[in-house]
């Protein structure tokens, strides 16, 4: 009996889905046509490009190719927008009274009607697209096997990742766009209203990110910029709106090397975006967000009653929350675009009044709309002010208590921490006194906030990362240290903790790395001299052990006062580690610098001298290779 009931109810839901699909069939055909003009067409152009028999494809001149790309783009935009129409049409009973009695009276639960309507519209929308993508894959396989491919072209390697990105990404954009419109449909009364709210919903997340980004950028003094960018722009933004998904697709297509990279993801600083390996995780995030939109739609749909057909289902709190968000987004976006106050007021007021009139279906309540606008803007200003103040007090100007911190790390160009200015140094402090000194210098840096005249080294930076005893971390970066902060940073370098770390790091590098070690010698950096072919002969195990002993002694004996004036010393020696051979060093430059032996490293300099490293023979032996290294270094 239960089985029969369940079978009946599921068949009714399927039947309902099919009848809706029939209603949307013409849009489905349109999606198919437009999709076929999209990727398959651009693939024809791409395959033609790969063909060595270019005469056969001479008609595919550059401008024809451009037309193909343009057609593909326009058709893709049309395909996406058809999603809105299909969503609205699948839920016609929400705005068209003619359908409400007919569909609400059907023997189905509210939930099944929603799910069935949603899936039916979705199937009608995406199946033609999937079909067109199958066509494009077949086209590509057949095409590649029938054309003479240029020697240097590898269409599979080049276009399979591209196709994957386009198919998966395209589907995600479509499904998200469609779901967003279903959601807006659930609280709108008319097609027009759905269109307005759908557009607003699509723009809402991107604008919100711009706002957050802008507030943090403007007022988030010391907050780690990479975190903002990674968290908000490259991650959250890329899966929380169709525009964000398109942005990600754009990156994937514009930087194809990131998607054809099938091994390790590319280095972050190279392309901080995505590799083909990370697409699956991103797709999952997108699907989870779509799921969230779907559930929100269902909750709204369940609350909506048949008698509300054709009426806005926007209660006052929802209206004010939505308007607050839209107004804040518009205002801050314009602020980001450096627009003046008057245009901001005019634009926000116009947007508010238009939306309010649409919701109230007329201009009868024009005057109250202005009052509501004023109230909402007052709210926006208040929240903005409170947010900035709260961020200022609780985030920007917050320095943790020493007793709460397990350890602190200080990062920066080693200008302060090592004394060279070439690479980022990072030191770890667990000693309570040192942690106190760090919190004090942190507080001091904050007290100079906005006092640019007090900055000694503009365009330099240093960072502090606290790890609390409960595991939580707090990281700050400052683009310019102030004089007293700079001095304290230098002093920190000569604490026992740092000395120990320096020795450990140096020992580890010199003893354990398989890399080629290279010494550059000279009074200044510009005067670098070395016989590269002698390099291996110099770095024997005995030599390394002796150098390490001397450096250890120097480091332990050194004080911050010793460091002063080292630049005037006659010797200036850098030890570089390279990943492979000296040729690679010449070609690519050094991988990283292990240590700088300045003139105040008396023992080490003495040792180098005793080993003949600083002898006239070597110093004078300027080879071509060394010049190349110097050029690379300078560039």
């Amino acid at each position, binding site marked *: 009996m239960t089985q029969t*009931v369940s079978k*009946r*109810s599921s*068949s*009714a839901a399927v*039947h*309902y889905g*099919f*009848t809706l699909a029939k209603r949307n069939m013409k849009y489905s055909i349109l999606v198919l046509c437009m999709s076929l003009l999209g990727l398959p067409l651009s693939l024809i152009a791409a395959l033609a490009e790969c063909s060595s028999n270019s005469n056969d494809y001479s008609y595919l001149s550059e401008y024809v190719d451009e037309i193909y790309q343009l057609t593909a783009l326009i058709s893709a935009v049309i395909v996406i927008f058809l999603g809105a129409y299909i969503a609205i049409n699948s839920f016609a009973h929400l705005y068209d009274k*003619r*359908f*409400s*009695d*007919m569909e*609400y*009276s*059907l*023997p*189905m*639960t*509210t939930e*099944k009607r929603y799910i069935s309507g949603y899936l039916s519209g979705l199937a009608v929308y995406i199946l033609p697209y999937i079909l067109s993508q199958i066509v494009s894959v077949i086209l590509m396989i057949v095409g590649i096997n029938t054309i003479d491919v240029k020697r240097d072209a590898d269409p599979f390697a080049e276009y399979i990742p591209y196709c994957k990105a386009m198919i998966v990404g395209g589907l995600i954009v479509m499904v998200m766009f469609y779901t967003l419109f279903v959601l807006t449909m659930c609280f709108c009364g008319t097609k027009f209203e759905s269109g307005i709210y759908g557009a607003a919903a699509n723009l809402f997340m991107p604008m919100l990110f711009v706002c957050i980004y802008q507030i943090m950028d403007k007022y988030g003094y010391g907050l780690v910029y990479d975190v903002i960018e990674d968290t908000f722009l490259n991650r959250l933004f890329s899966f929380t709106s169709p525009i964000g998904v398109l942005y990600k697709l754009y990156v994937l297509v514009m930087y194809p090397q990131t998607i054809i990279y099938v091994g390790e993801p590319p280095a972050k600083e190279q392309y901080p975006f995505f590799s083909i390996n990370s697409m699956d995780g991103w797709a999952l995030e997108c699907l989870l967000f779509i799921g969230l939109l779907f559930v929100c739609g269902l909750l709204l749909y369940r609350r909506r*009653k*048949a*008698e509300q057909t054709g009426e806005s289902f926007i209660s006052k709190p929802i209206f004010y929350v939505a308007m607050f968000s839209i107004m804040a987004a518009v205002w801050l976006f314009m602020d980001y675009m450096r627009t003046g106050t008057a245009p901001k007021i005019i634009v926000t007021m116009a947007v508010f009044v238009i939306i309010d009139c649409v919701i109230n279906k007329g201009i009868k309540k024009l005057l109250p709309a202005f009052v509501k606008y004023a109230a909402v803007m007052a709210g926006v200003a208040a929240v903005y002010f409170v947010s900035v103040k709260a961020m200022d007090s609780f985030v920007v100007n917050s320095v943790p208590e020493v007793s709460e911190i397990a350890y602190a790390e200080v990062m920066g160009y080693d200008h302060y921490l090592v004394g060279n200015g070439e690479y980022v140094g990072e030191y770890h402090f667990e000693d309570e006194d040192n942690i106190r000194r760090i919190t004090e210098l942190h507080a001091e840096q904050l007290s100079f906030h906005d006092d640019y005249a007090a900055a000694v080294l503009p365009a330099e930076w240093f960072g502090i990362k606290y790890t609390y005893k409960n595991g939580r971390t707090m990281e700050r970066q400052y683009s310019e240290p102030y004089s007293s902060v700079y001095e304290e940073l230098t002093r920190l370098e000569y604490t026992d903790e740092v000395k120990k770390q320096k020795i450990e790091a140096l020992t580890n590098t010199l003893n354990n790395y398989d890399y080629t070690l290279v010494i550059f010698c000279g009074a200044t950096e510009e005067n670098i001299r070395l016989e590269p072919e002698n390099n291996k002969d110099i770095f024997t195990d005995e030599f390394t052990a002796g150098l390490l002993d001397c450096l250890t002694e120097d480091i332990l004996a050194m004080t911050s006062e010793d460091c002063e004036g080292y630049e005037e010393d006659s010797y200036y020696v850098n030890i570089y580690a390279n990943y492979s051979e000296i040729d690679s060093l010449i070609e690519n430059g050094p991988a990283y610098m292990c240590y700088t032996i300045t003139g105040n490293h008396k023992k080490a300099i003495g040792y180098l001298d005793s080993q003949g490293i600083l002898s006239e023979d070597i110093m004078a032996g300027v080879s071509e290779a060394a010049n190349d290294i110097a050029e690379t270094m300078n560039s």
Partner: protein
Amino acid sequence: MIELKNTVKKFGDFTALDDVTLTIPEGTAFGLLGSNGAGKSTLLRLLTGIYSPDGGTVELDGIAVYNNEEQKRRVFFVNDETVQFGSFTLKGLKDYYKGFYPNFSEEIYKKLVETVKLPENKKLDTFSKGMKRQAVVIVGLSCCTEYLLLDEAFDGLDPTMRIIVKHMLVDAMLDRKLTVVISSHNLKEINEVCDTAALMHQGKIIFSRELDSVKGDIHKIQVSFPEEHTREEFQCEELLHFERSGSIYYMIMRGSEEDIKKKIEPFSPVLFDVIPLTLEEIFIYEMEVLGYDANGIEKE
């Protein structure tokens, strides 16, 4: 059995159904009478599960209808509007509803289509209003539900078709104990098809009784007295209407013939005749008491 207990339905500030309690037994033909805006259509939509009650309950055999698939499968609702079916052909409409109602009978459908001779493959848009209604009634009857609810069922039907549709309904009631609820302004139709009726006004049920008892409970009398009398002299709860034409008095009164006679006897009538009342007259006089009469509305 359909049961509404203290059912309330509101649309914003407007109360469409106000504390309605009503029982419709199985197998009856139930008529819903009432002025425009009385709440008849709202009541039917509540019975269909289109609307959810804001208060009280709407149940079929003790189980709520709203958002209950199984219960809704027992009901078919024929709306007063048919424009939504315009894009369907009759066959398409049949296929549409067949998917939702597993008891759909092709046999009944074919029989009914043959009876009314409607084209199956023409779009309903091309049909007249009456033909559309026939088409929907045919599909509704073919769904073989236990309850058939018709809103303004006979609207747009020509006299011949009215008879045919009435026969269809009566046959279905006899064949499979179908419970029919009809809302209509056409009291004659209700009178012919229904055995029980309820009168609604401003969201309330004024009465709900078997039609025979309704008719037996209100009488029009024609009396004459040796002396002149005013309405006030006869004023009582039972008096619905008072009219004088020369020496003849016409009164509509509630109650049995005997009771009315007892009330009039003290005035020593020289003439006392009982004139049969149509349902339409009963409706008009009942509504008049409630202040819903042409004169009253004009005065307003």
